[in-house]
């Protein structure tokens, strides 16, 4: 909300400079989001009246004016604007004036005609950003008066009011807070509660939504323009002037926080009923639009139709117009939740609903009405007819409660003397009902319904006492390692291992678009009921589509080698069960690209993906071919018999590019959440190992796994390790026909209790060679 500092200053003495005021409020929890200057504070700029205007002899677009600047002699000014009438008053910058952008005004000749100053537009005085022609002043403006009297300098504060502090949504409310914070006396506007009576002309049939309603009749109202002082006040805080009656209701809302509404009394048929709308009841609002209502919406109605959506917006047909003579002035209390719902349903937020939905001060309802009556009498000639008619009951004042001084000290971690606590609370208008040295009981003023229990009072104490005065303490307590700790540490380890192998970590959104659902990876997903954009319609059932999106973006950006991973949650249909996943993506050239050690760039392939997964430390992983329409080559990835996920090479239709795209998505094991696995020491081998090689020619279809199974079938206890160290096929060598491949294995023999002798190693090796030949029909090479 915007506040005029001048206006607030009418009710309390303010700190001398605005920065100090802003700091005072900000550090008390009333955050100042902006400070701006308002008004025209220029020397040598005065109000002048245009007495005559004639055509410039040498320039079609210019006029020569004689203006009265109040000095007794007329001044001649050359002027380019056309938007004035002779007799109107405008701002005149005299020689010596300095306008914004360091524009210095001097007496000069324009096209041969003397000009002793400049008539100004609103823009030239920095009163608005745009303007067309001269700024025409009110006829009330005094000739010769400094322009600052018409547009007094002011500072406008943009204040963020937290939703619990509806009492601050007015200039008087903010002044009351400042008085409490500084201890300066508050100067409330002198308004007495009006005389009230109950009468048949107001009836409430929805007492829950509208507990209290009041109407004051005013007659002989002259609707017209508002006086300068009122227009200036509204203008300062960004409100447009409408007419004197509407302006007064807005003024009182800004001053005291109570929204008011004025009806044209002559347009009403019978008395007022406050009721809920009928099903499908239509209402024509003053914005010219018709709103469909339902029985949750509160309606102010006469015997024939709705007059206003209670607390939200008035009606087109019952409002005050230029011809209005008699006015009914409404001041009421509406149920905050009802107003909030209606304003939101109808998308009709207003200054009034903003205050009603946060709760207005029950103690201000009738006084605000009286304040408006007083002003309408002064500026619109209104005469009061009868007492204020009221219906219903004002909401009960907040219930008082106790504060224990020791509890206050304990929660704040500092000792605040009881007397200081009392002084602070009394500063906020709380009344001490009694107490001891240990505790006190407090009556809460009607405008502070946010104070409901002891801890709320402690907050008031710390706001004024100052949290800066509380010394920070560094108390701690020991805590056990949790399941979440273990998961975090495990994932951190995976991340570090992948980063060490050159992978970059991606973090894609848990919300995915429909286009990525359609691509086959995630046909089924839990969709949001209220998505905001097409990019975020469902919870990702897989991390692959998101990572593929990152891949595509990087290809477009020209990346030549892409190795990405992500660790995050997937949400599985039908109930969005959460599942921690690791996904890897590789494409493009191997690390380093073309370089002097490796020669030409080698494209990343399936074995790079396998190697990356092997290095994660998840134990031995087994790949088994699987079917998946999105993959050119798909495999299930197993740890022992558990399927962890799917990996392989995407079909080029999904990859969207010529280079192979290798991906794997694994579900991270759950057992991490239990106690960590402890490795046990195993004795080091003390006796040397012997190695022998086997080179063989095998049919192309024979797999490494089949050869390995034959090599390590358990019949040779001395065989400790097998390593494939060479592989080529017909494409690599002219000496090999297409149906065959050449492999070479290095076999290591070792015994943990003794050094092996040549003969027994050779014998074991020969048995293995014979077995290969016999079982696999491979041809051994020497």
């Amino acid at each position, binding site marked *: 909300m915007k506040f005029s500092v001048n206006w607030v200053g009418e009710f309390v003495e303010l700190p001398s400079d605005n920065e100090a005021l802003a700091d005072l409020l900000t550090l*008390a*929890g009333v*955050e100042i989001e902006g400070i701006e200057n308002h008004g025209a504070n220029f020397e040598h700029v005065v109000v002048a009246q245009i007495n005559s205007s004639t055509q410039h002899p040498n320039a079609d677009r210019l006029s020569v004016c004689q203006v009265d600047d109040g000095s007794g002699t007329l001044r001649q000014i050359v002027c380019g604007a056309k938007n004035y009438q002779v007799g109107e008053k405008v701002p005149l910058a005299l020689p010596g004036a300095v306008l914004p952008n360091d524009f210095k005004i001097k007496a000069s000749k324009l096209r041969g005609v003397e000009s002793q100053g400049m008539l100004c537009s609103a823009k030239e005085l920095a009163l608005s950003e745009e303007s067309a022609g001269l700024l025409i002043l009110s006829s009330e403006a005094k000739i010769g008066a400094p322009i600052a009297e018409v547009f007094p300098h002011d500072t406008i504060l943009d204040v963020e009011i937290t939703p619990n502090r509806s009492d601050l949504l007015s200039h008087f409310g903010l002044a009351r807070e400042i008085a409490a914070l500084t201890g300066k006396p508050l100067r409330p506007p002198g308004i007495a509660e009006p005389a009230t009576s109950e009468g048949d002309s107001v009836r409430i049939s929805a007492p829950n939504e509208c507990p209290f309603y009041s109407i004051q009749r005013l007659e002989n109202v002259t609707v017209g323009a508002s006086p300068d002082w009122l227009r200036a006040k509204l203008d300062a805080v960004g409100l447009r002037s409408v007419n004197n009656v509407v302006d007064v209701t807005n003024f009182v809302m800004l001053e005291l926080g109570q929204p008011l509404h004025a009806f044209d009394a002559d347009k009403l048929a019978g008395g007022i009923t406050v009721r809920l709308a009928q099903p499908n009841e239509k209402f024509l609002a003053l914005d010219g639009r018709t709103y469909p209502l339902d029985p949750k919406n509160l309606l102010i109605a006469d015997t024939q139709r709705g007059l206003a959506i209670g607390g939200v917006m008035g009606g087109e047909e019952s409002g005050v117009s230029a011809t209005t003579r008699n006015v009914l002035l409404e001041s009421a209390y509406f149920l*905050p*939740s009802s107003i*909030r719902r209606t304003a*939101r349903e109808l998308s009709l937020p207003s200054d009034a609903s903003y205050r009603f939905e946060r709760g207005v001060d029950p103690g201000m309802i009738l006084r605000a009405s009286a304040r408006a009556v007083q002003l309408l009498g002064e500026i619109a000639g209104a005469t009061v007819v009868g007492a204020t008619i009221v219906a219903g009951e004002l909401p009960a004042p907040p219930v008082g409660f106790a504060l224990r001084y020791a509890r206050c000290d*304990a*929660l*704040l*971690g500092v000792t605040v003397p009881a007397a200081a606590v009392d002084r602070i609370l009394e500063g906020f208008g709380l009344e001490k009902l009694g107490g001891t040295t240990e505790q006190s009981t407090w009556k809460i003023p009607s405008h502070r319904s946010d104070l409901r*229990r002891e*801890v*709320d009072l*402690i*907050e008031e104490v*710390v*706001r004024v006492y100052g*949290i*800066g005065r*509380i*010394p*920070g*303490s*560094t*108390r*701690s*307590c*020991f*805590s056990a390692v*949790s399941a*979440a700790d273990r998961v*975090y540490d495990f994932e951190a380890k995976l991340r570090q291992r*992948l*980063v060490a*192998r*050159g992978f*970059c970590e*991606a*973090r*894609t*959104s848990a*919300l995915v678009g429909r286009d990525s659902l359609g691509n086959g990876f995630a046909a089924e997903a839990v969709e*949001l*009921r209220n*998505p*905001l954009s097409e990019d975020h319609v469902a*919870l990702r059932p897989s991390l692959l589509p998101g990572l593929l999106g*990152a891949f595509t973006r990087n290809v477009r950006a020209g990346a030549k080698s892409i*190795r*990405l991973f992500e660790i995050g*949650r997937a949400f599985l249909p039908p109930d*969005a069960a*959460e599942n921690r996943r690791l996904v890897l993506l590789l494409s493009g050239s191997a*690390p*380093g690209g073309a*370089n*002097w*050690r*490796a020669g030409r760039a080698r494209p990343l392939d399936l074995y790079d993906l396998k190697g990356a997964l092997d290095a994660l430390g998840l134990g031995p992983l087994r790949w088994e071919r699987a079917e998946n329409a999105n993959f050119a080559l798909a495999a299930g990835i197993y740890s022992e018999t558990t399927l962890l996920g799917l990996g392989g090479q995407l079909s080029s239709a999904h990859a969207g590019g010529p280079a192979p795209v290798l991906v794997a998505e694994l579900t991270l094991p759950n057992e991490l959440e239990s106690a960590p696995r402890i490795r046990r020491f195993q004795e080091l081998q003390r006796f040397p190992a012997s190695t022998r090689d086997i080179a063989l020619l095998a049919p192309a279809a024979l797999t490494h796994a089949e050869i390995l199974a034959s090599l390590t079938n358990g019949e040779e206890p001395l065989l400790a390790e097998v390593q494939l160290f060479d592989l080529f096929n017909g494409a690599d060598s002219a000496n090999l026909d297409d149906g065959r491949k050449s492999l070479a294995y290095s076999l290591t023999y070792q015994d943990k209790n003794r050094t092996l002798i040549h003969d027994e190693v050779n014998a074991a090796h020969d048995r293995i060679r014979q077995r290969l030949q016999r079982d696999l029909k491979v041809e051994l090479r020497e």
Partner: protein
Amino acid sequence: MLAMTHPLEELRDAALAEISSAPNEAALDAARVRFLGKSGTISAWSEQMKTLAKEERPVVGKLLNQVRGAVTAALEAVGEKVRAAQETGALASLDISLPGTPNELGALHPLTQMLDRSIALFRRMGFALAAGPDVEDEWHCFDALNTAPDHPARNEADTFYLPDGRLLRTHTSTVQIRTMESAAPPIRVIAPGAAFRRDEVDATHSAQFHQIEGLYVDRGVSVADLKGTLEYFLRELFGPDTAVRFRPHYFPFTEPSFEIDVKSKALKSGEKWIEVCGCGMVHPAVFEEVNRARGDTAYDPEDWTGFAFGLGMDRLAMILFDIPDIRLFAQNDLRFLRQFVS
């Protein structure tokens, strides 16, 4: 005889001279064969021993051993020198300005780095980690956190809902409730995680963002403890000269509530206060609601007090790493990610 030089000594001198001037290992090997080889000239003396007079034998034998030792030592010493010279000679021509064998380091996402740094700091202070689901029910997200049934935050305009009525948590404060439901006090946890709000995406807003929630419940926890904890964290993060200020604020689930601003010359924002955290003392109504759900009085607000805080990781990372646009985090452009190799 004594004055005369023994032929063995002459032989030794000749051998040492040849060895010391040997230009390479081949010349050394030749010398070894010539003097100490099976039919070498020094070895020949061993054969001659038996032809010597009985009294001469020990004298010559001793001399022979000395000569053989001296020549062997010289062969070894000069061999070592020659080999070293050969090695450095070969390596002298190596171009050490050539690039090393390529071996790229990857990079952690800057948000992960921010989370890791933050978690490490809180672990120093004795916080354990806690976790909760992204898909939550309204009770954990709002009711249990003292948020009124008609509070605007619950609106479909601000919160993502699933068709079954559950929602995507709008803050990690849900983990406060989940932790207290499952464990009795004292509690000292942080919960890193994602949260979701139905915001239009722009340079500072994203539908998904990342927070670290903190909760400490114990006997006698006070605003002073809250202050000390977060001041330590922020000064460790932004530097010891960082100015930290607490501003009263409003959250339904804490009372009193604060926002924290920091100011540090090390940051681009310089002399400007920037908001980095929301926090406060756990509202007694939250304890009361947890007790209702637990069906006990484990969290009696008369016995236990606590503080809670929420730190925006995206925002902190943007401040710390000087990242201008939150959308960069979700784009995962390698040119962006690689800037944060650490």
